[in-house]
């Protein structure tokens, strides 16, 4: 009798967990990632000749609750047509009854690994602004992400930024969606594809979760909850010697009270834009010396051109008068 090697066992396990795609038009290529209750696979759509990501529940769900949540996640994604958000293509069921949806397959590193390679602070800040734009768009469509973190942001091969994993998203805009959310956030429910912090309504990632979200206070969540997480992401992107105005922006975005934060992702983006343009950052009070230094840095070339002109003009007057 011969025992199977660990490698062979791993392969068997992998084959056993692979979804049966026989009833769909997709062909399995491999596994991309695994979350708490779902797995994302790389599949090929032969009819269009493209690769897409397929997210499917790990186990058939007898109560249909998880299936409903995955469907809801797909519907949330479907309403967010934005270059910074991976588009969803299709929702369906596998032959074994598991719900799945397919979305754009994003090739590229996650933000946490990309950030280390992004050369300059300005590049990282522009990257952050694109995240903010996608989140602001979602807020405009009445959707909170609630799990923004570097691991949930992908950077494509052409520098495009995609905010991923909307499994904890919360809809804000209508009483109907509020009712659906109350069910989804009820104690004992699980998040989809995302680690949760324990039993109960506390869903998210420590370090990126706003205090009101960490308390499980679902009624207090609004755009400023994501602003907190964006502030944490911004702080993550600030490697090395961090300019004081940027730290002030992070502090304001991550204020304990939502009232002390930026009102939305666009306001936070605008503040970062002000920093990038050398303008005054509202979260950072500056004295005369710092203001002079900032203005000098912003208008350095113009300043030296004028100084050169005055020096040349003065020299001509001086020497022609001798």
């Amino acid at each position: 009798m011969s025992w199977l090697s660990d490698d062979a066992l791993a392969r068997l396990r992998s084959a056993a967990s692979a979804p049966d795609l026989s009833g769909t038009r997709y062909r399995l290529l491999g596994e991309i990632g695994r979350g708490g209750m779902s797995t994302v696979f790389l599949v090929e759509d032969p009819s269009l000749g493209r690769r897409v990501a397929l997210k499917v529940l790990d186990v058939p769900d007898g109560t249909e609750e998880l299936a409903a949540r995955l469907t809801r996640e797909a519907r949330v994604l479907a309403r967010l047509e934005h270059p910074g958000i991976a588009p969803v293509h299709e929702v369906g069921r596998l032959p074994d009854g598991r719900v799945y949806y397919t979305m754009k397959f994003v090739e590229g590193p996650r933000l946490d690994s990309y950030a280390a390679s992004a050369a300059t602070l300005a590049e990282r800040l522009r990257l952050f602004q694109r995240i903010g734009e996608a989140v602001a768009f979602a807020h405009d469509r009445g959707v909170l992400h609630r799990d923004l973190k570097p691991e949930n942001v992908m950077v494509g091969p052409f520098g495009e930024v995609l905010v991923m994993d909307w499994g904890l998203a919360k809809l804000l805009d209508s009483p109907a969606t509020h009712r659906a959310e109350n069910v989804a956030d009820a104690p004992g429910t699980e998040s989809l594809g995302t680690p949760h912090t324990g039993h109960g309504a506390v869903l998210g990632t420590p370090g990126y979760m706003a205090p009101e979200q960490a308390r499980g206070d679902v009624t207090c969540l609004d755009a400023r909850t994501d602003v907190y997480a964006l502030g944490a992401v911004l702080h993550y992107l600030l490697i090395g010697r961090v300019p004081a105005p940027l730290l002030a922006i992070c502090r304001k975005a991550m204020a304990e009270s939502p009232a002390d934060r930026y009102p939305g992702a666009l306001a936070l983006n605008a503040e970062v834009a002000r920093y990038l343009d050398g303008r005054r950052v509202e979260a950072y009070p500056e004295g005369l010396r710092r203001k002079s230094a900032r203005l000098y840095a912003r208008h350095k070339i113009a300043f030296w051109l004028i100084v050169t002109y005055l020096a040349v003009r003065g020299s001509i007057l001086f020497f022609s008068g001798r």
Partner: protein
Amino acid sequence: MRKIGLAVILGAVLGAFDGLTAWFEPSVRDQIGTIVMLSSLKSVIAGLLIGIFACYVKKRVATAVFGLAIGLFLAYLVALQPDPATGEHFYAQIMVPGALVGLIVGYATARYGEKPAAQAA
């Protein structure tokens, strides 16, 4: 239009300032009004050309170099006129500051004439 307007205004102001510096030269102080007027006119023409150039060429360095060249050329035309009293030409005294004024107008037009990001979006 924003760039042309800015370049013309900058040209007028800097040209007038450049002309006013002639006040420190006693030999031409009595002609200060004519000098200021001609200097302003020269710089307004330079500003107009720089502004039009900046509307088509978006590169900051190119606009600054164009401004330098236009400033130098127009100043050369002015410097060709000799001093009526002595017949002397003041090439360096007119052309070097004129070129620098053109450079400043060119750079400032390209740098500050752009629409703010919020408006451009």
